């Protein structure tokens, strides 16, 4: 299963590279920046693994690549304009990504900050809140871009509100998945598997090095 997910991730990365190259060669530059930036983002987990020894779960890795790939692919293929609901699918995917990353961060905070204790049930509530709040901030970002640069990121009110509906659903779904995860392993095991402990030490070392310079 894990191997298959890794293979799929690689295939999608290759496709994005192909999209970037093809766009460059045929002079269709609209989606080239998005493809390149997405490729760079999908490489961040590998960089984290190399430099900080932080290992994100394979599923999460796959999820990151999938969300970016569907975004780039939808733009190039015109699915954003032609397939109804495509934008909501990609929006829900990225919202769930934010939720998952938030989940990991909050778990780490719960573990490493002495004055904070967040029980499992509260974690779920917090993830739902965090995802929805990020969704609102996201829509505000789109709105202000439209205002200042005259771009056209927000279509109609229905569209915006449906995006936010999906933010809520994604947040609650990830909260449920996270609770499921934690019912199998403990918080500490979960974080240890990802190497958060080592990553934290590495970060501390890097910061110390910077300071002593």
């Amino acid at each position, binding site marked *: 299963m894990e191997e298959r997910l890794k293979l799929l991730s690689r295939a999608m990365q290759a496709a994005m590279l192909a999209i970037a190259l093809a766009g460059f060669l045929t002079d269709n530059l609209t989606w080239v920046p998005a493809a390149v930036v997405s490729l760079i983002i999908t490489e961040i987990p590998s960089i984290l693994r190399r430099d900080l020894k932080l290992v994100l779960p394979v599923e999460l890795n796959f999820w990151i690549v999938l969300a970016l790939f569907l975004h780039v692919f939808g733009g190039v293929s015109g699915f954003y304009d032609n397939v109804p609901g495509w934008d909501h699918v990609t929006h829900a995917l990225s919202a769930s990504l934010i939720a998952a990353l938030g989940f990991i961060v909050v778990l780490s*905070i719960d573990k490493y*900050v*002495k*004055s*904070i*204790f*967040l*029980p499992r049930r*509260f974690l779920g509530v*917090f993830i*739902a*809140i*965090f*995802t*929805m*709040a990020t*969704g*609102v*901030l996201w*829509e*505000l970002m789109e*709105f202000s871009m439209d205002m200042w640069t005259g771009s056209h990121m*927000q279509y*109609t*009110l*229905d569209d*915006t*509100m449906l995006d*936010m*509906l999906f*933010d*809520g659903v994604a947040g609650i779904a990830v909260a449920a998945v996270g609770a499921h995860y934690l019912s199998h392993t403990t918080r500490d095991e979960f974080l240890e598997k990802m190497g958060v402990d080592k990553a934290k030490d590495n970060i501390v070392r890097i910061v110390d090095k910077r300071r002593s310079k």
Partner: protein
Amino acid sequence: MDSAGHGPTRRKGIRNLLTSRLLEAELSWISSLILFFSTVYTALNIDILWVAFGVTALTLYVLPVVANRDPFKALPWEMTLLLAAPMLLHISAGSERLNENLTWWRDLTSLAFAFSLATIGFLLTVELQIFTAIRMNRPFAIFFVVMFTLAVAGFWGVGEFIGDKVWNTDYLGSNYDVMMDFVWTLVGGVVMGIVYYLYLKATPKGRRERLEFMHMWEATNWRKG
């Protein structure tokens, strides 16, 4: 104060303290009554979202009183008034007309709403620490207040959106209107986050301890089990 020197000044000090304490509590009770009757009013109008808001606010008000069995452990009156403000703005008879005539009326109501959402978030951080095992430090609590404000406004908007679709109403207005609501929510949330941070610092220790719940963030003897 012209008859200074008569009688022990210490007793006078205590009496002053008692009256100010009573006055404060009375202000708080009156504010809670305002909150209560606004909630009843919205319930009579079957204004579901606002009933939910009112009931939540009232619960947060009643919990410390009931848990301590002490009517003097009521929430500070200024917070209670902040909670009641958006309901009053919402149900004020001229609200519809004001909405049409004053361009900034909707901005004002959404800002007031953000203030009280942040207040609910703040009370949640405080009361969760009293009644559950949850512990937060100040930066996290402030972060929670801001996130909570934005998120509830978001869920609220989605709720109104669904309501608009189901009952064929038009509370939300245009995309621009809703986005401006969120802009004010963000402003209100961040401002109140900062205000509550300073508020905790500025509230005299005596008052904090008297109200018995606002010192929770500074619990220093607590260690993770």
